[in-house]
């Protein structure tokens, strides 16, 4: 293939450094897709049917059409956070992980004795994360034993645990082997100690070698390691050294992933600010990819999936069953999986997950019932990630004609030399393997073209290139889902405004209770200042998250309706609405609510209007009788304004903190 490309560190028109800019002119694809999440175009479906009924039917009555099944357990804690990762995980301790294991057990117990679990054996269990090896040894062993017992995992089943090097010691490895763990997937990433440190990894090369040896001695049958390429400043030669180490260690499985600079990660920030060396350009990346394939195949490995190479001892069952249209039972918070035609996802947050499974599993955070054609395409992408496409063995039903649906793309890739035809099926060529995610994504996008107007739970916009998306395992809300009467606000904006409104009410209620009971409310101005401060700090953050004209009016309208309902303060309610609208208009006039100073001014106007109106009754009835009331009311209004300014300023600080926590995307 003729390739003409620029470097991936270039200057855009406005002069900003745009390190991700990669053009691949003259080639079939403009950019390389690097994550399996890029191939989820088949998930672009409108919600159909009643998924809860379907999954309950499958689990309770065992009406699963597939005989191949796996389970995935997600442990969302890590002892240390890697600089490149933005998966669903948070810093945690073994104690926190042990506490969380109780929830997993609870969910597993809900599945116990269900017709689905009793219907057939599970071929594989995969514990991923986060870092499941963070679990204390006894908890980990106990959890695996329960999972084995409930899911009916036997000697022939594959039980995999993801782990970092530094979490493993001899005792833990022996306990794991004894509990039935047959395979470990080690997050090596690189054998180069300085690169490892840059990525947030703790152990050095010698420790890696020692740990792998200990794992073998402990009785772990299959040892697989993740190795990254396209690392900052990495040359082809440096990557080759990593591969040589992997081959030298005689690992049973090697997973090779190109590094993706995920949005919001320290890595991405470092690249943006040039604190980290730029990522290799696409030509180096492709060279690394092809070289890796050559070296590993020459060393006796076989390419099993787009990213995984195996020797005969590594069955890689979990990935293969999943990609072969098998079921995958999701267990744990933010775990995703499939049950027949259903795509399921548990709640992403631990507390939401806890609520979801307390008193029996009440549901999944998301469940989508795939139409037949989308299911076929899922099967197609699965096969392509395993290196072939067989129109006879992909999932299909009588209403579909796979040959006809796939013909155009098959011909295109045969023509481009990415696919080759054998007697039974189509197979990826050497070039095809390197572009396998692009090819799979293109096939998956057949579904998109027909569902371009429908909403999607798991959709990946076609323009997204790996690395520019916010989270590989996160649900996508879609670009714009403006229903009738939504006036430019997305459902996410509305959710933020609604929940933050509830927060304003709760915080104000708590402060009001405390201040009234302690008598602080009687000190002139204090109550107004604090209430104004507390509400404005929350409103500031909400409006920074949804910086759209009208957002303040919506929040104040909602707030006023609830205030009127719960406390009967009609005047205050009107004050809130008028204040909100006036604030919005002012902010728009002086530069837009997305800017900090207009936003603070809008908050001041909103708060002073609200205080003025809520004091109007006293103002009208008592100003002529007691002049002191006059001054007190004015004092309250000034206190409100001061509170709003202080709230806005504190909001700036809090916004920074929240952004740092990764919530303020």
């Amino acid at each position, binding site marked *: 293939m003729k390739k003409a490309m620029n470097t991936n560190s270039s200057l855009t028109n406005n002069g900003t450094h745009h390190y991700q800019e990669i053009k691949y002119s003259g080639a079939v694809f403009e950019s390389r897709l690097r994550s399996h999440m890029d191939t989820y175009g088949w998930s672009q479906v409108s919600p159909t049917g009643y998924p809860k009924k379907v999954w309950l039917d499958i689990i309770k009555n065992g009406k699963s059409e597939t005989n191949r099944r796996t389970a995935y357990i997600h442990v969302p804690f890590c002892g240390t956070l890697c600089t490149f990762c933005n998966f669903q995980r948070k810093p945690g301790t073994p104690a926190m992980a042990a506490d969380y294991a109780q929830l997993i057990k609870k969910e597993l117990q809900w599945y116990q004795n269900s017709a689905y679990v009793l219907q057939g054996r599970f071929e594989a269990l995969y514990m991923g994360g986060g870092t499941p090896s963070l679990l204390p040894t006894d908890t980990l062993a106990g959890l695996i034993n329960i999972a084995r017992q409930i899911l009916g995992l036997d000697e022939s089943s594959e039980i995999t645990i993801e782990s970092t090097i530094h979490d493993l010691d001899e005792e833990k490895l022996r306990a794991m082997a004894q509990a039935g763990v047959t395979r470990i997937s080690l997050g090596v990433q690189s054998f180069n100690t300085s690169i490892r440190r840059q990525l947030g990894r703790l152990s050095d090369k010698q420790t890696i070698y020692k740990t792998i040896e200990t794992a073998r001695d402990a009785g772990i049958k299959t040892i697989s390691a993740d190795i990254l390429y396209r690392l900052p400043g990495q040359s082809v030669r440096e990557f080759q050294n990593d591969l040589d180490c992997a081959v030298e260690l005689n690992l049973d499985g090697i997973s090779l992933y190109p590094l993706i600079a995920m949005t919001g990660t320290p890595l991405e920030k470092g690249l943006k600010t040039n604190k980290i060396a730029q990522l290799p350009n696409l030509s180096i990346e492709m060279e690394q990819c092809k070289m890796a394939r050559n070296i590993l195949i020459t060393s006796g490995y076989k390419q099993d999936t787009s990213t995984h190479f195996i020797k005969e001892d590594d069955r890689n069952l979990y990935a293969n069953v999943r990609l072969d249209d098998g079921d995958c039972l999701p267990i744990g918070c933010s775990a995703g999986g499939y049950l027949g035609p259903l795509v399921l996802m548990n709640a992403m*947050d631990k507390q939401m997950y806890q609520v979801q499974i307390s008193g029996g599993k009440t549901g999944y955070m*998301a469940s989508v019932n795939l139409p037949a054609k989308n299911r076929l395409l899922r099967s197609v992408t699965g096969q392509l990630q395993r290196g072939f496409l067989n129109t006879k063995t992909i999932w299909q039903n009588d209403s579909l004609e796979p040959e006809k649906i796939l013909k155009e793309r098959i011909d295109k890739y045969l023509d481009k030399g990415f696919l080759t035809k054998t007697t039974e099926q189509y197979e990826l060529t050497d070039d095809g393997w390197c572009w396998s995610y692009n090819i799979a994504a293109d096939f998956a996008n057949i579904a998109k073209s027909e569902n371009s107007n429908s909403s999607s739970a798991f959709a990946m916009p076609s323009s997204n290139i790996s690395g520019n998306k916010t989270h590989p395992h996160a649900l996508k809300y879609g670009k714009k889902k403006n229903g*009738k*009467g939504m006036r430019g606000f997305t459902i996410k904006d509305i*959710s933020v405004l609604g929940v933050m*409104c*509830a927060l304003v009410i709760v915080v104000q209620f708590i402060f009001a209770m405390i201040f009234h009971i302690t008598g602080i409310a009687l000190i002139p101005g204090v109550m107004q200042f604090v209430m104004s401060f507390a509400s404005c700090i929350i409103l500031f953050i909400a409006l920074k998250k949804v910086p759209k004209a009208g957002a303040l009016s919506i929040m104040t309208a*909602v707030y006023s309706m609830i205030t009127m309902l719960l406390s009967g303060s*009609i005047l205050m309610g009107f004050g809130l609405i008028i204040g909100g609208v006036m604030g919005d208009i002012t902010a728009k006039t002086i530069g837009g609510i997305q800017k900090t100073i207009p936003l603070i001014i809008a908050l001041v106007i909103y708060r002073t209007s609200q205080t003025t109106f809520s004091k109007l009754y006293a103002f009208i009835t008592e100003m002529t009788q007691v002049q002191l009331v006059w001054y007190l009311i004015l004092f309250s209004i000034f206190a409100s304004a001061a509170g709003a300014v202080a709230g806005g300023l504190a909001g700036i600080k809090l916004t920074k903190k*929240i952004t740092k926590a990764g919530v303020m995307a």
Partner: protein
Amino acid sequence: MIRSFTQRLGQRNPNCVFEQLDPRCKLLIVLIVTIAIVFSNSLMSSGLFIAVGIVALFSRLTKALLFTSSFWVLLWCIFMLLFHIVMRQAISAPRAMFTAMVFKGTALIMTGLWFAVTTKLRDFTSALEAWRIPKIIILPLTIAVRFIPTLFHESLVIRDSMKLRRIAHRKRDLLKQPHLIGHSYLALITIRSLKMADELAAVAETRGLARPGKSKIFKPAQFKRNDYLSLSMLLVLIIVLIIASYFV
């Protein structure tokens, strides 16, 4: 108290007439009671307090009624004491103040609570849609109403965890370390809320809420005999109280 109240939200009594009223009827009742209380005198506020109390008892809100009344009585006592000690003078009409604070305050809050507790969110939404209130207001309003109890619960969890870590856990810290309370509590609860909003949006998207087009309401809001009867009874009560106030 708050914990038991949030639990109560999930358990509605299907046999109680007051709980089964049309949400629009309930909204009208809340509005009428609110306006009547704002402009009421002692007799009228006492009458409305009794009426609201009876409804609360039938709707199994006895604990909430007792708590709210006690809260207002406590506040009244604090006010009386403060005026007496700090300002060195007694309030001229303590009984009038008692009526204004305890009866009016309790009646107002209990009416709102009765509405919030006995109305299913779905019914509330369909009632507002029937009144043609824009979706851009209905959706956040529905979310806010739904999440108030959840956030109360979250607040309690954060308070517990702050206590556990001995961060501003004493009552005097409210005065001594208010910045620490704000710093720890506000930051945490805001992060939790934003995360909740993210999850909620994902769920809403999955459920198809964001899809354009009109959604089908399976149980449309509809006024029935009991609704008309309740509204009439309330209006009659208010008229009787107004007339009685005139004569007393």
